[in-house]
C-alpha cells in the first residue's frame, strides 16, 4: 500500500500501523503512516485521507469508545482532527503509534526501548555452542569423558577382528592351543571397555551437572538484573521453566547427547574403514542407504524445530497456570472455583497432549521409515554375502566379521537418528536459555551513575508515566518532599499512589519529566545505592519460606540479635513472636502462609525498619492490622521516623492525618496539597473522602452500639 503514497524526496517512512476498521467505519483496512515529516492516514487503496505535518501537531490522544477507539490530533491552531479508528484489539499498537507521534524527537528512544527487551532471534553462536561455552571450566573432565568414550570405540572394533581369527584361523584350522589366547584377549578387551565406559559416564555426568548448576545460577543472576517489570513480559512460571526444564534438557545434551554424537560419528568413520578393508563391494551396498538417511534427518530437523518449540510453550503454559493458581489456593477455595480451575488446567493439558501427539506423528513420519531402510540394507548384505561364501569368493569368517561390523556401522547411524529428536529438544531449550541470557534490562545503571549518600530530599518534576505507552497513570505530577519531612499520599483507588513509590524505587522509568533525589536525577544514581537507602513496606508484603529472624534480617543481613528484636519491637511484632514455640526461629511458610495477615505485615515492617532507610515508604503498611495495633505501630514508628523522610500511602485517612503534609491524587493528577486541617477547610476531595470515612465509622459505631 505504501508504494502508492507519494512521499517527498527527503521523506521516509518511520512506522506504519494497520487498522482493522476501514475509513467508511466497516471492518476493513486503513493505515496510519508516520514519516519523518508527516502523519498520514490512507484507505486500503493507498488514497490519502488525512495528512498533517508533524510540526503542526500540538498533541495526540486516543479516545476510547465501546468496541473501538480513535486517534485524534490536536493541531497548534487548536483544531482537533479525528484521524483513524481501530478496534480495541489494536489498542496496544496504536498506543505505540501515539507515543511515536507525540514527540517527534523521542522516536528513536521509543524504538530502542521497544527493541531492547525483546529476545534476539539471531545469534552469533549456535545454541549448543553457546551451552558448550559453559563447559570451559570443566574442560579436563570433559576431555577425559570424551577420550574414554572414543578409546572405548576403538576397543569395540577388536572383538569382530578376533572373531574372524577365531573362526578362520583357530576353529576351522583346528588350532586348539590358540583358542584360550584369543578368548582371553576378547575378555580383557571387554573388561577394559567396561572400565572406560564407567569412567566416561562419571566424567560426563560430572561435567553436565556442573554445567547445569552454572547455567541455572547464571540464568537466575541474569533474571535478577531485571526490574519487576520483566513479569510484564514473562509470566513467572515461564521464567521458572527456563531455569528448571530447559537446564535439564541441556544437561541431557552434555551427559549423553554430545558423547553419543561424537561416539557415533567416530565409530561410523572407523567401522566404515574396516568394512571397506574387508570387502569393498559389500561395503558399497552397506553404504547405499546413507544419502537417504541424511536427507530424511535433515527434513526432520527442519520441521521438528517449531514443533518442539510449540510443545515446550504448551508445557510452560501449564507451569504458568500452576504457579498462578497454587499460591492462590485459598482464593480458589473461597470462591468454590475448583471446577473452573480444573477446566482451565484441562484445556492447557489437552494442548500439551495435542502438541505431544503432533511431535509424535512427526517422529513416526520419519523414524520407522529410516529403520526399515537400514533393515533392508542388512538383508541385502546377507543375501549377496551368502552367495559370495557359497561361491567360495570370501570365507565364512570374513562374512561373519563383516556382518558384525555392519551391525556396528548401522548402530551409530541408528543412534544418530534416534538422538536427533532429543537433540532438537536440547537445542531448542538451549536456544531459549540463550535468548533470555541475551536480553538486556531496559532499566540499568548508566555508565556515569553515582553512589549517593541520600539525605532524603525528593522532587517529582513534571512526571508523566504509564505502564503501557501513552495510557498515563501519572499526569504531570509535581511535588517536593524535604529531608526529614513526613508526607501522606491519599486518593481514590487507581489514582496512582503506589505508582509514585515504584518510580521512586526505579522499578520503572518515567515517560516524561524527572524524579530527583537530593537534587540528582535517579537515573544517574546507582540502582543498588538508591534502593538500599529506600525502605518500603507494601500492602501485601511477601515473606520468604524461611524463619522469622531470617526474614527480618533480609533488610540487614548482618543485623545483631538486638537489632532484630528492636526492629520487631518497633513493628509491634516482638511480643507475638515470643509467644511462638520457636520464637524468632519459627518458620514463616511459603509466602508467609504460616502467619496471619497482620503478623506478616508487622514482620515486613520490621524487615524495612532494620535496614535503616533514609527514605521510608509505608504503602498501606498497616492496612491488615486493627486500629489499636496500628496506633501502637505509629507510636513506635515515631521514634524511628523522626527526622527521616517518610512517605505514607493510606486509604484509611486516620493513618495519615498527623503527617506534615498531605498530597491528594485523583486520576493520576495532584488535586490538593496541605495539612489535614487545611484540606478539611478547603472542602475538596480530601474533605469528601474524610467525611465519607468518618460517616462510615459513625454508622458502624451506631450499629455495633
Amino acid at each position, binding site marked *: 500500500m505504501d508504494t502508492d503514497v507519494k512521499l517527498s524526496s527527503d521523506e521516509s517512512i518511520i512506522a506504519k500501523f494497520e487498522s482493522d476498521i476501514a475509513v467508511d467505519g466497516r471492518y476493513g483496512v486503513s493505515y496510519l503512516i508516520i514519516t519523518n515529516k508527516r502523519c498520514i492516514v490512507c484507505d486500503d487503496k493507498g488514497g490519502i485521507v488525512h495528512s498533517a505535518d508533524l510540526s503542526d501537531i500540538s498533541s495526540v490522544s486516543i479516545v476510547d469508545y465501546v468496541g473501538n477507539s480513535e486517534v485524534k490530533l490536536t493541531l497548534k491552531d487548536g483544531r482537533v482532527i479525528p484521524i483513524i479508528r481501530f478496534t480495541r484489539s489494536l489498542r496496544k499498537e496504536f498506543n505505540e503509534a501515539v507515543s511515536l507521534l507525540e514527540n517527534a524527537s523521542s522516536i528513536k528512544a521509543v524504538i530502542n526501548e521497544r527493541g531492547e527487551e525483546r529476545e534476539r532471534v539471531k545469534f552469533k553462536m549456535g545454541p549448543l555452542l553457546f551451552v558448550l561455552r559453559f563447559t570451559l571450566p570443566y574442560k579436563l573432565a570433559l576431555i577425559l569423558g570424551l577420550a574414554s568414550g572414543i578409546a572405548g570405540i576403538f576397543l569395540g572394533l577388536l572383538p569382530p577382528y578376533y572373531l574372524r581369527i577365531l573362526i578362520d584361523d583357530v576353529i576351522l584350522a583346528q588350532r586348539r592351543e590358540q583358542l584360550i589366547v584369543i578368548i582371553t584377549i576378547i575378555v580383557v578387551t571387554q573388561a577394559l571397555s567396561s572400565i572406560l565406559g564407567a569412567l566416561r559416564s562419571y566424567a560426563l555426568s560430572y561435567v553436565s551437572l556442573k554445567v547445569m548448576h552454572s547455567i541455572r545460577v547464571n540464568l537466575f543472576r541474569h533474571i535478577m538484573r531485571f526490574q519487576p517489570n520483566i513479569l510484564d513480559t514473562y509470566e513467572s512460571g515461564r521464567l521458572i521453566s527456563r531455569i528448571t526444564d530447559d537446564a535439564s534438557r541441556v544437561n541431557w545434551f552434555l551427559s549423553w547427547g554430545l558423547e553419543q554424537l561424537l561416539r557415533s560419528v567416530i565409530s561410523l568413520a572407523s567401522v566404515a574403514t574396516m568394512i571397506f578393508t574387508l570387502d569393498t563391494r559389500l561395503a558399497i551396498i552397506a553404504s547405499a542407504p546413507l544419502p537417504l538417511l541424511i536427507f530424511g534427518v535433515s527434513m526432520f530437523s527442519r520441521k521438528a524445530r517449531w514443533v518442539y518449540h510449540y510443545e515446550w510453550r504448551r508445557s510452560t503454559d501449564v507451569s504458568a497456570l500452576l504457579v498462578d493458581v497454587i499460591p492462590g489456593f485459598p482464593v480458589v477455595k473461597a470462591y468454590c472455583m475448583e471446577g473452573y480451575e480444573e477446566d482451565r488446567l484441562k484445556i492447557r493439558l489437552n494442548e500439551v497432549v495435542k502438541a505431544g501427539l503432533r511431535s509424535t506423528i512427526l517422529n513416526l513420519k520419519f523414524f520407522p521409515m529410516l529403520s526399515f531402510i537400514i533393515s533392508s540394507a542388512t538383508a541385502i548384505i546377507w543375501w549377496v554375502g551368502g552367495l559370495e561364501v557359497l561361491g567360495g569368493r570370501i570365507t565364512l569368517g570374513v562374512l561373519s566379521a563383516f556382518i558384525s561390523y555392519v551391525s556396528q556401522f548401522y548402530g551409530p547411524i541408528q543412534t544418530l537418528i534416534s538422538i536427533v529428536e532429543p537433540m532438537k529438544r536440547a537445542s531448542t531449550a538451549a536456544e531459549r536459555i540463550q535468548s533470555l541470557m541475551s536480553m538486556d534490562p531496559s532499566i540499568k545503571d548508566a555508565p556515569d551513575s553515582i553512589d549517593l549518600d541520600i539525605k532524603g530530599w525528593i522532587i517529582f518534576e513534571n512526571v508523566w508515566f504509564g505502564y503501557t505507552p501513552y495510557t498515563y497513570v501519572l499526569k504531570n505530577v509535581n511535588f517536593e518532599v524535604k529531608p*526529614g519531612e513526613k508526607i501522606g499520599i491519599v486518593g481514590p483507588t487507581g489514582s496512582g499512589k503506589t505508582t509514585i513509590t515504584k518510580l521512586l524505587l526505579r522499578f520503572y522509568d518515567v515517560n516524561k519529566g524527572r524524579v530527583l533525589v537530593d537534587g540528582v536525577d535517579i537515573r544517574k544514581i546507582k540502582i543498588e545505592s538508591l534502593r538500599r537507602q529506600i525502605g518500603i513496606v507494601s500492602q501485601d508484603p511477601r515473606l520468604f519460606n524461611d524463619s522469622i529472624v531470617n526474614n527480618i534480617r533480609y533488610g*540487614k543481613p548482618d543485623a545483631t*540479635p538486638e537489632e532484630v*528484636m528492636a526492629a520487631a519491637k518497633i513493628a509491634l511484632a516482638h511480643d507475638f513472636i515470643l509467644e511462638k514455640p520457636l520464637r524468632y*526461629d519459627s518458620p514463616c511458610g511459603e509466602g508467609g502462609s504460616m502467619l496471619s495477615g497482620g503478623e506478616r505485615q508487622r514482620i515486613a515492617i520490621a524487615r524495612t525498619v532494620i535496614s535503616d532507610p533514609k527514605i521510608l515508604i509505608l504503602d498501606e503498611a498497616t492496612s491488615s492490622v486493627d486500629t489499636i495495633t496500628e496506633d501502637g505501630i505509629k507510636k513506635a514508628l515515631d521514634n*524511628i521516623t523522626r527526622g*527521616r523522610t517518610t512517605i505514607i500511602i493510606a486509604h484509611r485517612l486516620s493513618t495519615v492525618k498527623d503527617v506534615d503534609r498531605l498530597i491528594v491524587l485523583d486520576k493520576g493528577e495532584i488535586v490538593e496539597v496541605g495539612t489535614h486541617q487545611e484540606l478539611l477547610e478547603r472542602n475538596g476531595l480530601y474533605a469528601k473522602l474524610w467525611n465519607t470515612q468518618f460517616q462510615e465509622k459513625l454508622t458502624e459505631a451506631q450499629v455495633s452500639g
Partner: protein
Amino acid sequence: MTSIKDYARTSFRIVEPDEIEIEYDGDSDLLTIYIDGKPYRGVEPIKPFPLSNPYYVLFRSTSTHEDICVVNDIRRLKREKRILLERILDKRYFIPSIIDVYDITYTGEYYVCKVKTDRGDRTFKIMGRRNVYRIDDKIVIIDVDENIYLIESYEKMGRKAKEELMKIV
C-alpha cells in the same frame, strides 16, 4: 533521626556474665535476677533464637513484659549460675537432638520416624516435608503433635541415617 542501632541499644541492655546474679524466684519456674544490685522478680528466661543462636537468652518480666536484659552467651556464665539457668531452660526448650535414624516408613498418611535422640529413643509422625525445615546446616523437625526435634548437622549423620532421612528431607 534514631538509627536502629541506637534503638536496639536503648531497648535491649546487654549484660556481661559478671554483671548479673541469678536465683530461683520461690518454687516457680521463674527467676529473680540482680543487675548492678537491683533486683528484678518474676523474670522469665527466653531463648529468642532457640535453634539458630541457642545460647542467647533474653530476660523478661512476666508481669510488665519488660525486656530487662540479654546475655549473649550463657556458656560464659559462672558454673552455678549457668546450671541454675540451664535447668529452667532445659524444661522450657525440650528440643531433643536426633543422633541416629533407625527407620522412616511412609504409611500413606504419615511418615513414621524411629530415631535415637540425646534424650533416648523415640517414634514420631510427620506429615511430610512441610514439617521439616532447615536452618543453615541444622534440620528442624516438628511432628504432628508439635514436638520439636533437631538434627545438628545432616552431613555428620551416619550413612544409614542419611539414607533414611533422604525420604523426608
